[in-house]
């Protein structure tokens, strides 16, 4: 089942590639239609997924290269399920948003589908070598998507993106190989199996070095301050679909990696690094927001807001509490939806006006009321308005991190003020007032296709805002298990109120 989930998009890519080259108008519809297959498979998985089970489900394991202990080892748990779902939802939307791509359409669709396969593979891989392969495989299609279909400075942005990430990947690969070597030393055979590597007996020094190796790779991906400067450039240059998938899913490889690998493999190092991780997270939250306020370019503004929002996910990870973990996991999905939607919207106005500069707009609500309404809705979801999805994750993170890291949590809460400032100020300048520029007066409101792109996202923002249970039920057991793992392997003790069980029992006071 999981193998199919990875192979189907890859096969779909091949199918699109084999389309007759004189019928390039077929590429997008065919790719779009095929992208519903992984959506259906993932939907089935999502609803068949057993809640209350901590371990990996739907696991599949086949030996790949025995001498090195590499295997095709897949599984999904509460931490990865939401991200898989997010990927399969955003891909068809990103494809349908790309009707303006007329140059080399076929290649574009192929790269997008390959990207999907790589992303899903990364979230499902339980073998570190396999994970690394997918982690790297994702880079290539994104590199070309930015480099070929981006705006003026696309080559610069694509190179920057590639070099930053590859830099991190080198550390990641080295650390993975080192782990395997240690496994060979201790058990007589190399292994890349996550579960087997978790039982390695590492000295504190070893685990700190390796933690740093994994950490750098993931920190660049998130991105964590001060390794974030590739992100605004990549976003500004990337085509809409690229931005949607980059912010929506790809950045989550970083936050996911921290939760999945850094905490599981090096718990003691993680516990020791809490002040550093939380500190960088909080810097990201505040810094990203402060810098976002004055950005003159809408896409750049959204890009910096991502730095801020992803800081919350990292903070929730560093919280080492039930609510913190749950918040981090669900915020992964929520940020993908809201930021993906924001990039879609910015893309729609860019296609009309060929500018993303805030100062070029003004009074758009008058000429494009539907667009304005959808933008405002999404902006409030991003600001963290309760009732919409963004709130659930950030609130759980904040509430969950206070028992363990109160000072960081308090500073992070300040971010909620800043989010309101940068988004509402941008909205004010773009949408309110009188549309006095002639170019803006002629603008047409969204068409049915564009509204159709937004509807699933809007519905999900509302559903996850008011009924996050569908996701939280599926994540709870896995996040608890992760917390257990950290607690049992280290000297760390989860604070009294940082545990689900205490909440319900209402006891535990000495």
């Amino acid at each position: 089942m999981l193998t199919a989930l990875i192979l189907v998009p890859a096969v779909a890519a091949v199918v699109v590639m084999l389309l007759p080259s004189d019928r390039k108008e077929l590429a997008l519809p065919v790719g779009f239609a095929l992208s519903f297959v992984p959506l259906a498979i993932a939907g089935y998985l999502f609803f068949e997924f057993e809640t209350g089970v901590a371990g990996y489900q739907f696991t599949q394991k086949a030996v790949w290269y025995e001498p090195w202990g590499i295997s095709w080892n897949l599984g999904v748990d509460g931490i990865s399920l939401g991200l898989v779902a997010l990927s399969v939802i955003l891909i068809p939307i990103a494809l349908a948003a790309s009707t303006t791509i007329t140059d080399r359409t076929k290649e574009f669709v192929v790269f997008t589908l390959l990207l999907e396969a790589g992303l899903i593979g990364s979230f499902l891989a339980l073998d570190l070598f396999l994970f690394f392969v997918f982690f790297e495989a994702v880079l290539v299609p994104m590199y070309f998507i930015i480099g070929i279909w981006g705006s003026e400075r696309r080559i610069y942005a694509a190179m920057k993106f590639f070099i930053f990430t590859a830099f991190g990947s080198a550390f990641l690969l080295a650390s993975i190989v080192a782990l395997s070597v240690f496994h060979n030393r201790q058990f007589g055979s190399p292994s890349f199996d996550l579960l087997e590597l978790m039982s390695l007996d590492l000295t504190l020094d070893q685990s700190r070095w390796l933690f740093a190796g994994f950490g750098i790779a993931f920190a660049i991906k998130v991105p964590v301050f001060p390794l974030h400067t590739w992100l605004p450039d990549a976003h500004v240059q990337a085509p809409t679909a690229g931005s949607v998938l980059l912010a929506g899913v790809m950045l989550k490889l970083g936050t996911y990696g921290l939760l999945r690998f850094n905490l599981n493999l090096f718990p003691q190092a993680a516990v020791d690094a809490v002040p550093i991780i939380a500190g960088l997270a909080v810097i990201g939250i505040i810094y990203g927001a402060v810098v976002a306020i004055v950005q003159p370019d809408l896409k750049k503004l959204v890009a910096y807001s991502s730095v801020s929002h992803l800081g919350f996910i990292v903070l929730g990870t560093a919280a080492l509490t039930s609510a913190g973990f749950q918040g981090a996991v669900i915020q992964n999905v929520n940020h993908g939806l809201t930021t993906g939607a924001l990039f879609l919207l910015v893309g729609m106005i860019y296609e009309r006006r060929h500018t993303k500069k805030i100062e070029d707009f003004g009074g758009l609500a008058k000429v494009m009321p539907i667009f304005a309404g959808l933008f405002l809705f999404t902006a409030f979801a991003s600001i963290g308005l309760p009732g919409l999805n963004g709130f659930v994750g950030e609130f759980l993170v904040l509430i969950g991190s206070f028992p363990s890291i109160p000072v960081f949590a308090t500073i992070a809460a300040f971010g909620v003020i800043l989010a309101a400032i940068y988004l509402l100020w941008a909205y004010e300048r773009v949408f309110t007032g009188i549309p006095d520029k002639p170019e803006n007066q002629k603008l047409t409101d969204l068409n049915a296709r564009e509204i159709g792109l937004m509807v699933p996202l809007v519905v999900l923002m509302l559903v996850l805002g008011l009924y996050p249970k569908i996701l939280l039920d599926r994540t709870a057991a896995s996040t608890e298990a992760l917390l257990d793992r950290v607690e049992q392997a280290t000297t760390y003790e989860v604070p009294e109120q940082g545990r689900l069980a205490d909440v319900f029992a209402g006891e535990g006071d000495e």
Partner: protein
Amino acid sequence: MTDFVWLVIAFPLAGAVLLHFLGRRLGEPLAGIIGTLAAAAAFVVAFVAALPFIVEEGNHGETVMLWEWMPAIGANLEITWDPLAAVMALIVTGVGSLIHLFSVGYMHGDERFARFFTYLNLFLASMLTLVLGGNFAMVFLGWELVGLCSYLLISFWYTKPSAAAAGKKAFVVNRIGDFGFMVGLMLVFTNFGTLAFDGIFERVPEILDGSTATAIGLLFLVGAAGKSAQIPLYVWLPDAMEGPTPVSALIHAATMVTAGVYLVARSATIFAAGDAGIVVAVVGALTALWAASIAIAQSDIKRVLAYSTVSQLGYMFIAVGLGGYIAGIFHLMTHAFFKALLFLGSGSVIHGMHEEQDMNKMGGLLEKMPVTGVTMGIATLAIAGIPPLAGFWSKDEILGVAFEYGGVGIVLWVIGLVTALITAFYMTRQWFMVFTGEPRWEEGVDPHESPRSMTVPLIVLAVLSVGAGFLNTPFRLTLEHFLEPSFELVKVAHPPEGLGMFALLAAISVGAGIAGAAMAGFVYSRPREIWERFQGGFGGLWEAWQAAYRVDDLYGATIVTPGRKLSERMAFDFDAGGIDGFVNGVGRAVRSAGARTRVLQTGLVRNYGVGFVAGLLAVVIWLVIAGGGV
């Protein structure tokens, strides 16, 4: 038993959804009528659900679970239906229904007529979520959603830049308060492990020590000061007058701005366990006096009322801060009636005067708009504290609570008295400037009384402004008995016992009210030159009041402008120049080094591959050795 109470929220919510999608097709006035009916239906449900509290003494109410939201922190969508919630729900839906009805006439001809009622219905649903929420997260849900509606409605006429800016300002300033509220909630969670009322209030004495309780209380106060427009966060409310006048009446006078008072009353056990209450009271007293003094010199009919609202909310803060929860809620209710009436009346005047808001350009309107004039006159007497009108009873109860508290309370009592005098002054001033004297209308203005749909709500509210005080008099404490089960866990502060004391204190405060009203009547019933001479007598003080002490400029110079400068520095100098400059610098250095070592670049992928693997191997070996501690 009252598990149908969710309908109170559901009706206006359904109205909002319906009007959002079908409003345009329904058109005018049908969209407005549907919106009004949704509000009225919520009132009926609230009334029926409140009956058990009247019938059975000591009925605590119950918690009705709707569905799970964030169970990990004890935050589900659930309703606590107790007497306090019932009183709030009745005020919100009752006044809300009247204001909906009024809006049908007031918004006549607006191209976004239906959209206005969508927002109004959404606001009611949000406000009811706030007051019915059974845990702090749900209160926060409503708290933020009313902020959203406030934002949408203040900037309803968004093509006007000042309206758009005012909406944003309201939301952002409120968010500053929310920061405090949120940190308070974190502290609550850390101590109780839940945000559900059921797991908190009864366990306060066992779990919270005094200083933690004080800290939570102070953080809640920050939130309350934002929503209820208290010092130092009140600055958004006067600007909020950019919204249509029914919005000012509903959101920025009668309901939303009282959320802070409600929060303190709801969290009474937490405040009782610490010392934050007295701070609440002092902030309230200072705000009451400060805002009242600004109201003296305003000439915009709505700004007078805006500062008056800030000031009256200060009274409520004095009450709940000192533990006089019943007195605070009582004043919240009477104020909702007479202040809504004043705002709607001013809306009627603005409507009749063709959107004129400057009182200097009014005068002599009583003859042209008799219903508006008389009902506003009643409201003026009510807020001035003239017996036996509603404001007299509730204000006196607050002053009595302060007096009985003693010590600092006496100071607060004196401040309250001075404020009462000023209140009577500026309200009487307003009434005389608008309704008596020579007409000072601009040319072409032809004032007329408003249609029935607007005057009926005025009359109903006027009746309530006269009679609502009798709900809680020293002779018959109906409201107090009704609310008692909600405040069982705390000691509620009361005015001094005995009718003699009551009469004495009442005489003093009524004296203050009459003095203020008489002074204003004496000056402003006469020609304009007299007022100007009177106002001139205050010299620079009058100008300071007129300019609202220039607090906006102060905030601009100390917070907004430096904040933006800092943001620009960070974005353009530090981020783009510093960090990214460094990154690109490294890139350039590598490239120039590359140029010198070009000989190594054979262009063959195989050679690169060898180099890559070799480098990787080196790193691995180093890691294994370094990490292995060999």
